């Protein structure tokens, strides 16, 4: 293993993020090649957390752009400060000349930076997180492609602005829509699966250090088996952490069906999934003698 990859593992671990080699290798490549990192995976496997951990490890500011349907240039790139512009126009003496006025009110002082412009104009290197890019529409994706290819944008009134240092870019997607090939090709691809029991336990130890070890093991084993059920919304790592916190709040010592049922709301966020998990089903899931290999 390259020492740089070990550095990534250690660095992310130092920021509270338990990475594995899949993640570390791809992150290492993305940093070295200055390529955007496209992270996909089910909800709650820690996609967004990667950007946060990178920002804290590399000591770079994090700029986050949350995507949604209808997101456009106004909300992602820049907007003019209309109130300020209006005041300025009112203060202008009559017949002062429209050109001069326009130069003033369409200048940097009247510009409201949105996340993408802030990322480009930042003097220092930053981490740019473009979260849930699949929620934005195709038009926005095309615009993003332009920004990501040379980190410059054009504001008609001001000209072209180019980034002084290339940001570390992390894009996340929940896969609700197929992203364009062009965007995918710009990026290094990272698929994050649900963690295996060892990794999930490591995460739990790090994020919930006060949780008793036997209980942590029980909780992880339970969640791991729960994910093999046919659920509409299988629990992610975030849910495991909530579940552990709930167990701790109830002063539990070992996991039993009653406790699991009480704290199940932390794991299951879908009424039909909830209904399908009867007391008998929970008992079966918690029974260590029922082999897990036949369910796999």
């Amino acid at each position, binding site marked *: 293993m390259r020492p*740089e990859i070990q550095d990534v593992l250690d660095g992310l671990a130092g920021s509270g993020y338990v990475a594995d080699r899949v993640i570390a290798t791809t992150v290492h*490549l993305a940093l070295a*090649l200055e*390529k955007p990192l496209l992270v996909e995976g089910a909800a709650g496997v820690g996609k967004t957390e990667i950007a946060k951990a990178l920002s804290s490890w590399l000591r770079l500011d994090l700029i986050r752009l949350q995507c949604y*349907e209808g997101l456009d240039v106004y909300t992602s790139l820049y907007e*003019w400060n209309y109130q300020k512009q209006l005041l300025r126009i009112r203060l202008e003496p009559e017949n002062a000349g429209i050109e001069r006025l326009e130069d003033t*009110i369409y200048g940097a002082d009247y510009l409201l930076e949105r996340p993408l412009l802030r990322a480009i104009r930042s003097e220092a290197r930053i981490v740019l997180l473009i979260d849930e890019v699949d929620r934005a529409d195709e038009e926005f994706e095309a615009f993003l492609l332009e920004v990501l290819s040379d980190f410059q944008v054009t504001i008609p009134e001001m000209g072209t602005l180019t980034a002084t240092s290339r940001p570390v870019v992390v894009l996340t997607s929940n896969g609700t*829509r197929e992203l364009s090939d062009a965007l995918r090709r710009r990026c*290094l*691809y990272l698929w994050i699966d649900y963690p295996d029991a060892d990794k999930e336990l490591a995460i739990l130890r790090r994020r919930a250090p006060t949780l008793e070890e036997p209980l942590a093991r029980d909780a992880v084993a339970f969640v791991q088996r729960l994910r093999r059920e046919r659920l509409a919304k299988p629990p992610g790592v975030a849910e495991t952490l909530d579940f552990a916190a709930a167990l701790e709040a109830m002063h539990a010592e070992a996991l039993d069906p009653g406790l699991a049922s009480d704290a199940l709301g932390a794991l299951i966020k879908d009424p039909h999934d909830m209904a399908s998990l009867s007391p008998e089903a929970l008992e079966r899931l918690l029974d260590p003698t029922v082999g897990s290999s036949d369910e796999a």
Partner: protein
Amino acid sequence: MSASGTGDDYGADPRRWIAGLCGELRAEGLRCSLSESVLAAECATLLDPRDAREVWLGLRSAFCSNPRELDLFDRCFWRRWRGAERAVSSSSARAAGGAPAPRRPPGRSGQPPAPGDRVALQAADAPTPEMFGTAWSPAHAVARRSFDRVGEDEVREIDRWIERLVLRLSTRRSRRLEPGGRRGPLDLRRSARGAVRTEGEWIRLARRRRQRHPPRLVVLCDVSGSMERYSRFLVRFLLAVGRAREIQTFAFSTRLAHLTPWLARTGIDPALAALRARDWSTGTRIGECLETFLERYGRTMLGRRTIVIILSDGLDQGEVEPLERAMRRIRRRARKIVWLNPLLESTRYAPEAKGMKAALPFVDEFASGHSLTALARLPALLRI
């Protein structure tokens, strides 16, 4: 782990090795262009060539771009890394040039099957002069005839009617706003621009309105027994209606097949013939097929813009429970479910079949779709 065999070859010349891998991936149907191999070669300079796992993970992030490709990549990578003998056989295939995609079941990798009869497709699809003559009229005899009573010789004629029927469909508006209109939210940017010229007085207010966006359609057609005929015309109709829009078509009976890649290459009839050749038209397992659809395609194809159209008589041989479960999940993920059941044509029909009964609570629109006239009502029903 230390490398051996072709792993050693990698150490000797990573670029060459990667170029070879690229050829094998392409032969397996993975899209793999120059930009991917260049990226992979760049990655290789940053990876330890003696560490197989590291090379594997690194190259994977360069070559793959969605979760469905991961398995395929893993298989190709390790085959090439471990065994020289198979690498030789596929390199001879590469030497033959072009690396044709092998015939595979549709849907698994999203790759279309081997090209079929393209000439027939062009003949069927090419607009003929008389098509532009008469206008579509629902009064025409053929328009009301149920598709299962359409003779073989009339199929082409109906296809031409469908072409005539292609309605200019209005499209749904998206949440993205574009300049224009008189009633939408204010467009501050353009209004402020205008106010510069009127000494800061906002005299003309510019507004924005919602853009129009076509919905995406996912069509699941029962091709078992008598349903095949209806399915054929529905698909034909939707293809004609939605040339520009995104339509994903599936056929099902006891199994599910992704038809879209076939349709693009061969057209509907060769695609259905290929399914028939695999002895498909025996029985229906709707529930299981819908679950397969959800598992493989649900994430990417369903969404707020998706309308799901299911054509089936609902005579299901499978269990009711999976059907109900799948319908519930589709209902939650899609904008709308339209169920077309040709049996509805009969006024005496009541949805008594247990499969149909189980599915109905989740259906937004229930229609027959059995004839041209019935199909003509579809766009309004879908509000597309």
